[in-house]
């Protein structure tokens, strides 16, 4: 399959009163056409900023993409002018946001909001875009779409609004759909419906997907490949089955260990990763995870491990081998 997206050493910073926030610290990855990439990590580890930087949706100022390139279809998106990047957004790259309750404009009809992108990028007139909007609403499973097109967002439930957001994201047949935690604000049954819908649409339409989540369960059945991010860096990258079977970074091990399991012995305590992610203004020397790591060794305090290949398509940024090396400290985290 052809290469669709290539991110090289992307670095995004926010220049605030308190100092420079290192939100994304030199991440590199690739995405093929039709491939689904899951990005996981806890809140504030640069997942969203990382993908927003791809289409330059960073509020500038204070944000700034200070380094790196994003090659999409052979063109560097970072070098594009405002006008050029606008013709990519919503057209070649669609986006779905986390909270469908606030991402739709409350005073515009559902139809108007879907038609906006169609008229902007596909050169459709009102009648054509309306016909297409009805088609899209049917595609994402809104019943009696032709009637509901004149409704306002408050007349839709959360799950239906997220379906509308997906319809907007897909309206111009994008090659890449970025989904920024699209199921986080929904309840569990609706989550499953939305994931199934996206899976079906991907198989029908063949677009690539970047799916951000902090819920490892949601992406397991959806993604082909996974990225694990921590403190604005990629700490592990692997095909989805490999990641769940052989997690190779202590952070990934911790994330998987903190999931409840069906075969768990009753009364057994869930593992947690103690402590908080580091302050992105003042990143610690060495590995960003060392303060919370059970496997840490002397070297972790002084040197940040590079992302190195450890298997087929499997990379991890760690000095030790979690499958062989012993746990060095049971309760590593100390309050400062």
């Amino acid at each position: 399959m052809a290469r669709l997206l290539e991110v090289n050493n992307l670095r995004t910073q926010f220049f605030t009163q308190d100092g420079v926030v290192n939100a994304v610290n030199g991440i590199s990855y690739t995405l093929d056409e039709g491939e689904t990439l899951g990005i996981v990590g806890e809140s504030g580890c640069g997942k969203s900023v990382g993908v927003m930087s791809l289409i330059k949706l960073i509020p500038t100022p204070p944000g700034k993409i200070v380094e790196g390139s994003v090659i999409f279809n052979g063109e560097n998106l970072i070098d594009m002018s405002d006008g050029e990047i606008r013709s990519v957004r919503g057209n070649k790259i669609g986006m779905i946001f986390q909270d469908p309750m606030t991402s739709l404009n409350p005073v515009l009809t559902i139809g108007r909001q879907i038609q906006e992108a169609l008229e902007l990028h596909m050169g459709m007139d009102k009648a054509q875009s309306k016909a297409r909007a009805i088609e899209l609403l049917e595609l994402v499973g809104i019943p009696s779409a032709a009637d509901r097109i004149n409704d306002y967002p408050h007349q839709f439930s959360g799950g239906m609004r997220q379906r509308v957001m997906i319809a907007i994201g897909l309206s111009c047949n994008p090659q890449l759909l970025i989904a920024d935690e699209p199921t986080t604000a929904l309840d569990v049954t609706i989550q499953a419906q939305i994931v199934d819908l996206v899976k079906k649409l991907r198989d029908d339409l063949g677009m690539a997907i970047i799916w951000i989540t902090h819920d490892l369960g949601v992406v397991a059945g959806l993604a082909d490949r996974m990225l694990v991010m921590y403190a604005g860096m990629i700490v592990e990258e692997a095909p989805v089955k490999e990641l769940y079977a052989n997690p190779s970074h202590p952070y990934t091990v911790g994330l998987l260990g903190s999931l409840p399991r069906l075969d768990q012995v009753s009364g057994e305590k869930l593992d947690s990763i103690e402590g908080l992610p580091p302050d992105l203004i003042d990143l610690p020397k060495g590995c960003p995870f060392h303060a919370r790591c059970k496997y840490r060794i002397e070297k972790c305090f002084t040197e940040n491990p590079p992302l190195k290949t450890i298997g087929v398509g499997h990379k991890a940024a760690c000095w030790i081998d979690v499958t062989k090396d012993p746990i060095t400290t049971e309760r590593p985290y100390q309050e400062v």
Partner: protein
Amino acid sequence: MAVKAIPHAKIKKPRTMWGDVVLRFSQNLPAMMGLIVVIGLYAVALLAPILVTTNYTAIDLDNVRSAPSLVHYLGTDELGRDVYSRVVWAARSAAFVSIFVPALSLSLGLFFGIIAGYVGGWVDTIVMRLGDILFAFPGLLFVFFIAATIKPAILLWVKGIGLTEFAKQGFVDYIVVFTALSLVGWPGLARLVRGQFLTLRNREFVLAAEAIGVSQWRIALKHILPNAMTPVIVVVSGGIGGTIAAETSLSFLGIGLQPPNPSWGQMISDYYIYWRNTELWPLLFIPSIILVVIILAFTFVGDGLHEALNPYLD
């Protein structure tokens, strides 16, 4: 036997926001009465040429300072002009003021408010300080000042572009009054619009619009502005009564609309000497009462809109 098609459950026609507003407004008695009076004002203004009994400038020298009669319904003034016709004709002045001044203030307020709130930075600072300067003057005093100072300039300009006829017909007075009132009216609206834009531009739907490639100005005008309009409509409609009162004050003091253009303020000023005259009192009281009713009517309509647009006020 053919199976009868099952009738679909009737789908309720979605109620639009404006549909709800109209419904709530129509259930508000004072607002509806106000609306009727306001419509009456515009009807009289529109039909003034039919309603008058004689030209509002015509002088009847046989009947100077006459009491109400069948010929002159409201009597005549000291120049022998028919007061009824002047009162009717003055509805045009009030109607003009009630349309053009809010429209002009709204345009200025929206323009500056959107620029200040959306562009921000030094543009915001300059626009808002300009507004603050205008705010610093006592409102009506500043209107007097503007009306008194810009009139010669506008007169010169109107004659310069060859509209001498217009200049004679008091067209300039209208421009002076409208400009003066609008210049004082816009800073409040600009502040309001700016505040709305400051909160709305950080909302997620703005980011979502950016993510589908909508341009900045389109976002400002098509996505944010409709969300910002509700309080603006309330303030503008609530201010119309005050605007008419301000025009009346200007005309009362002789720096508003000039004779022969009739204005209720001017008539009150001209006729208030008759306020204890047993025969001629209608000359003063009729324009005064009409003025009060009209201003109250606009206020009720404004309040009604306010309540209709904010249904959760108690």
